[in-house]
């Protein structure tokens, strides 16, 4: 750690656990963490182990009813390599996740800046609205969203009719492209509150003196944003962006419920629903497990950088 080099020598007021030998107590913290570690290993480690093993087996419906699975080595993975369906889903998931995450963070940043610029009353109301949208059970807000885009009695078509577009009876969920536009709007709507509130919390940490000084020096609004505000909240932005990338990669509920509401499932799968359908629909647990491992690797690849950068910023 670089911090050890720069930190001041331990004083009397700052007992350094490494420096002060307390034999019976040294093990205590480990005991405190142990239950949590155990639970996590049991709840996450075991399933992943199962997943790895199953991905090397032929594990279909028969195995669900007790027939011993057949060991096939890397066959499932080999089959995946040539499975165009899968790669379409993977590509689609990555594109969907990139677009959603970028739009979410962009809109969230805009909202955060707005909260900083607007009066107290309006800001409070906006904060409450954001919090409501964040806290709403996903399934509950999906009930409204599926109504908004419903072809028969939805709000979207009704509004379009009012402004003179002939949208009567148009089903937005049948075409994959409009399906994903709808899904992206919903996902962004649901994730923006978290991003906006986090970035706004970061903005409030900026000292007003710095901004005032910049204003006195003649920096315009755009310059202040680009040269002072953005660099200072960059850590927050990069963290929420990465979190968003990871969360949007594993989006499930919104896509599943939009499929239930009229989407063509086979043309609109993302990784989450694809695995779900492979496992519970087709009963092909071997392939499903292999796809899950692939998704895990993808997630680790994205989050690796995040964990690393977070560790670097960790004080003390």
């Amino acid at each position, binding site marked *: 750690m670089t911090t050890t080099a720069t930190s001041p020598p331990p004083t009397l007021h700052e007992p350094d656990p490494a420096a002060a030998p307390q034999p019976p107590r040294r093990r205590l913290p480990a005991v405190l963490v142990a239950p949590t*570690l155990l639970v996590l290993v049991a709840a996450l480690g075991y399933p992943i182990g199962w997943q790895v093993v199953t991905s090397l087996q032929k594990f279909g419906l028969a195995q669900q009813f007790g027939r011993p699975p057949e060991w096939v080595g890397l066959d499932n993975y080999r089959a995946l390599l040539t499975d165009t369906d899968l790669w379409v889903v993977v590509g689609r998931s990555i594109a969907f996740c990139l677009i959603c995450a970028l739009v979410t963070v962009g809109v969230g940043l805009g909202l955060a800046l707005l909260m900083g610029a607007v009066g107290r009353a309006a800001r409070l109301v906006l904060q409450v609205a954001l919090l409501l949208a964040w806290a709403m059970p996903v399934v509950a807000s*999906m009930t409204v969203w599926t109504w908004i885009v419903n072809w028969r009695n939805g709000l979207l078509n009704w509004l379009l009719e009012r402004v003179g577009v002939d949208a009567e009876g148009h089903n937005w969920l049948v075409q994959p492209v409009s399906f994903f536009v709808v899904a992206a709007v919903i996902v962004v709507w649901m994730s923006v509150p978290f991003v906006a509130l986090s970035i706004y919390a970061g903005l409030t940490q900026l000292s007003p003196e710095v901004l005032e000084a910049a204003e006195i020096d003649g920096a315009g609004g755009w310059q202040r944003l680009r040269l002072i505000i953005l660099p200072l909240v960059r850590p927050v932005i990069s963290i929420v962006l990465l979190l968003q990338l990871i969360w949007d990669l594993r989006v499930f509920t919104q896509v599943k419920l939009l499929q239930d509401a009229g989407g063509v499932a086979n043309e609109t799968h993302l990784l989450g629903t694809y*695995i779900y359908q492979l496992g519970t629909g087709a009963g092909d647990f071997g392939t499903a497990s292999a796809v899950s491992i692939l998704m895990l690797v993808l997630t680790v690849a994205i989050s690796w950088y995040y964990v690393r950068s977070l560790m670097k910023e960790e004080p003390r």
Partner: protein
Amino acid sequence: MNSSTRSARGALVTLVTWILVLIFFFPVLWMFLNGFKPESLASSINPSFIFKPVTEGYQLAMDRGMAGYLQNSLTAAVTSTIISVLLAIPAAYALSIRRVKNVQNSLSFFISTRFMPLAAIVLPLFMIFKTVGLLDNIYVLAIVYGAMNLPVTVWMMRSFLLEVPFEIIEAARVDGAGMFREIVRIVLPLVLPGVAAAALISFIFAWNEYFLALLLTSSAARTTPPFLGSFVDGRGQFLAVLSAAATIAALPVIIAGWVAQKQLVRGLSMGAIK
């Protein structure tokens, strides 16, 4: 910049804010309104804002056994919150105040589990519980939720604990307080708002969770989200009853969000920033 353009800009900013408020608030409002409409009006082609409220939707939702699903949701959310908070307090303490040797490693491990794609572990969970006959058991679901929320809870609590001034803890130690006393009597009271925020967020996650509930429960232990999801179809029917049910499901979370607004915002950003 003269004052009139400045005030014009201020008005514009305020206007934009209110439009955004509307965008984020509309679905919530619409769900609430629809719950009080008769079915024919709710699924009508023309949206209506003014109507004579009826409780038909709520009655229908209750007739469909909503109370049982709510009770399951409550059991799962409360049990899992208790599990994750009870485990997280000592862990967070050992990662902040009385540190374990490899804080960095333990922390990396906690954060990395937070990124676990749910889809990557649901099938094993399903198969494991199926084999041992524990599918459709609400306490099993609660334990899974507790484990799922644990990393976030530890992470958030740790960031609150880091803010406890060391002098206070030291003073307690000088007075001869044991570790248990130190945690319960000194540290916890100081970070109580933080603990509440972490507990609330973990409650909300469990209350709203859909994917695991869909897979691991079927009837006896079914929670509210999959029950709501089962209404969604392509014809846009049952809007009144669905909205009523969704309103009931959202109510506890919305009330909690309203009451604990400050702590929630802080807890959320703590989880992300720190």
